[in-house]
């Protein structure tokens, strides 16, 4: 399974996206699925970069796998245990003055992927997204 290990920093978002795109394109992923996966990577990797290690910088591993016409992308970090899927969904009907952007990213990921799962194992946050190619 191809994987990429990088320092979990915002500066590495482009490298992580390029890594995923290279494999998605090699598997003839549709443009729509690739776009949604790229957005999901932006939301999820950015969360790790901002919050997983507090003020410290740690590492993250991104792995991609293809089975039965689906892409599966797994994010691992060794930071504070945190399950973003437990957050309540934001109220997307509120007017502009009351709108919060926090929580919108993970909500977009949940809506655009076929499956999103989280587990904590061996001291790692493991988040997997699955999307039809």
């Amino acid at each position, binding site marked *: 399974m191809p994987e990429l290990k990088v320092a979990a920093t*915002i500066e590495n*978002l*482009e490298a992580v996206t390029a890594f995923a795109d290279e494999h998605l394109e090699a598997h003839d992923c549709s443009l*729509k699925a690739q*776009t*949604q996966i*790229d*957005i999901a990577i*932006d*939301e999820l990797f*950015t969360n790790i970069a901002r919050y997983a290690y507090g003020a410290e910088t740690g590492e993250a591993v991104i792995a991609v796998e293809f089975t039965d016409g689906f892409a599966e992308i797994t994010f691992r970090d060794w930071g504070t245990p945190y399950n973003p899927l437990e957050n309540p969904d934001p109220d*997307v*009907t*509120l*007017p*502009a*003055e009351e*709108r919060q*952007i926090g929580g*919108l*990213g993970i*909500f*977009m990921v949940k*809506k*655009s992927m076929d499956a999103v799962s989280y587990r904590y194992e061996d001291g790692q946050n493991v988040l997997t997204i699955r999307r039809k190619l």
Partner: protein
Amino acid sequence: MALIISMNRDGDSLTVSLDGRLDTTSAPKLEAELRPVLEDGVKNLAIDLKELDYVSSAGLRVLLSTRKIMDRQGDMVVRNANEAVMEVFKVTGFTSLLNIE
């Protein structure tokens, strides 16, 4: 690929065209470039998304904060969003927050 920001000013009207990806990396750049121009008396703002490939929540944040600035001083419209971008607007309820043409 990053984001290319083009601005076209005509009196108190400003058209901003975005080409590329409005994401975590590029959203702060758009906000920083736009703010001083808006403060310089823009009353009609059009944001053209024809060449925009996608928008993440960081991009939505900038669109919302820009709308709030323009609420105080004029109007803002968003134009030519492609299907992927429109879908993000729909899922997040931004279709009712932005004036989309």
